[in-house]
């Protein structure tokens, strides 16, 4: 799914050069649920940005789904983000002016889907996160956990192959965090690959593999890659099955 080899990322500001990633190498197989941990400033967000094609890198190779993504145009990257990647952010990143339905709708709009298709997907996704009664609520009218569930619905409706989550429970209390983790678990069981940055060991334990970053490098892989290969391909997502 995701193969990174010797990825480098340097931030240049007027005074200093920050080497946020220094030759990061990592493979994530299809259907895996990987958690990424590491102290603050170790490069976790940077790694996610590059993985999600939000940012460019300065060295190394990155194959996404077997495809080299280092030379894609902005337009092509937008397309890949739109179709293949779903993001869950620590601060939810819902659009404050739009109510739940419209928020979930955003990626679908950019995909140019027909209205009936979008409506069906949105309603199903919102139902899966249990917010069907809140379709016309604005983000400011929802609790943090509910907002994050809307963000997850936004991902679900788009049916990406890969979900990237940056501390999805960082702004939530433990009860809400558990709800979110349950949801992610479910999604992963349907076959979607998830890479999740987290500070909480509890959350990290829910993943099938933990990766530790330190100063822009992977320092420790909990389970050997061999085990990975023995993983059974995950079940298809319901909607894919329907097709």
């Amino acid at each position, binding site marked *: 799914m995701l193969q990174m080899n010797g990825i480098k990322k340097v931030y240049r500001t007027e005074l200093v050069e920050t080497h946020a990633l220094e030759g990061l190498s990592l493979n994530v197989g299809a259907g895996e649920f990987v958690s990424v941990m590491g102290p603050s400033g170790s490069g976790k*967000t940077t790694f*996610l*940005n590059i993985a*999600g094609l*939000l*940012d460019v890198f300065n060295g190394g190779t990155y194959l996404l789904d077997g495809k080299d993504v280092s030379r894609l145009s*902005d*337009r092509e990257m*937008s*397309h890949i*983000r*739109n*179709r293949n990647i779903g*993001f869950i*952010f620590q*601060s939810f*990143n*819902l*659009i*404050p*002016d*739009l*109510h739940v339905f*419209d928020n979930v*709708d*955003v*990626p679908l*709009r*950019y*995909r140019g889907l027909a209205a009936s298709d979008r409506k069906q997907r949105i309603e199903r996704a919102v139902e899966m996160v249990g917010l069907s009664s809140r379709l016309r609520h*604005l983000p400011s009218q929802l609790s943090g956990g509910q907002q994050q569930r809307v963000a997850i619905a*936004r991902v679900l409706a*788009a049916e990406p192959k890969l979900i990237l989550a*940056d501390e999805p429970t960082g702004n939530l209390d433990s009860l809400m965090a558990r709800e979110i983790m349950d949801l992610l678990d479910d999604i992963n069981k349907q076959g979607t690959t998830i890479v999740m940055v987290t500070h909480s060991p509890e959350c990290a334990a829910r993943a099938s593999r933990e990766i530790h970053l330190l100063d822009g490098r992977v320092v420790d892989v909990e389970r050997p890659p061999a085990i990975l290969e023995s993983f059974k391909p995950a079940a298809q997502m319901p909607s894919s099955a329907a097709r």
Partner: protein
Amino acid sequence: MEIGPIVRALTRNRTRVLLIVLQIAITLAVVTNAVNMIATERTKMKQASGFDDDNLLWVFSRPFADSFGDRAFRITTTRSDVRALRTIPGVKSVVNTNFIPWQGGGSSGEVKAAGGDGSSYRTQEYTASPAFTDTLGVKIVSGRNIGEGDINDEPNATTANVIISRGLERLIFKGQSAVGKQFIEPDNSVDTIVGVFDPFYNPYGWPIHEYCLVYPGTVARNGALFLVRVNPGAMKSVSQAVEKKLLSVNDGRNFEMRTISEVRDKYFTEGRIVIMAMTAVIILIVIVTGLGIVGVTSFSVTERKKQIGTRRALGATKSAILRYFLMENWLITNSGVLLGILLAYGLNYLLVTHTSGVKLDWRYLIAGVTLLWVQGIVATLVPAMRAAAVSPVIATRGV
């Protein structure tokens, strides 16, 4: 495109939207009415006199020498003046007349057609030498011109051969030829119409702009008045030569000179001020409103950086972001335009009822709407491009 969500998002920023909508609406109302005012004045200024305005020079001699107290002397000097002016190189024709085009007035009187129904008609009346038609550049369209032989400077004369403008012919004789017909003046003197000239237009305090009656005669009461027609391009050299030439005839006097273009400009002063002022208002309004849109859109881009980044992360292309802002602005512009159309007609109603304005031409409204659309696009483009340049990385960063 995604109109529904844009509209719903706009309703969450009511004040910002309302401000621009109002601004655009008033802009449309003011711009269209300003254009309407300009057009009205332009139409007025397009009115042609029918004369060779650009090549006419008005010369007025003001005598101070005692010898001018004698009427016969004044008349002979005036005749010499005409001959002298004709010798100036570049002069095409010279007439001694009390008519001055574009003065905004003149002299008028009432006449009755002999044997007519007895009704009186008010018409402009001037005295002139036979070169009247040649100098103004108008044509005798029927009958003949007045000639030197028609001139009778006797103050108590009771008959005269006259020429009239075609406008007056139509007014009084209703399609019949005026040549050979007669007018009875209030003092019972009789004018015989020998010819009809055309065109003639001279704005007057009363609507008799196209009616004119010309008596053959010499104008030399308090001073002598001349209209000089010059060859194209000769205005400068002729006007420099006039004073010297006339002083050589008699130096007991001073002169005033004005080109008819100057007189005409003066007549249209109000129109020119209106045109300049309204043009300035239009330009300034478009700039101010344009800058306003740039400013407000810029702020809203800054304010929405995070959500733009999120959209980009969720797969929006740069052009999608650009389109989003342009579409948003277009919707706002159109709401402003709708309100503006109402305001434009309202303002026009006020101008028509209170300031003798003219009814708004709907074509200016269409032009105004187009202008606002273009302005909206141009003004939104810069901040919208800034929005499109927002990096998707913003989405994962705290701020």
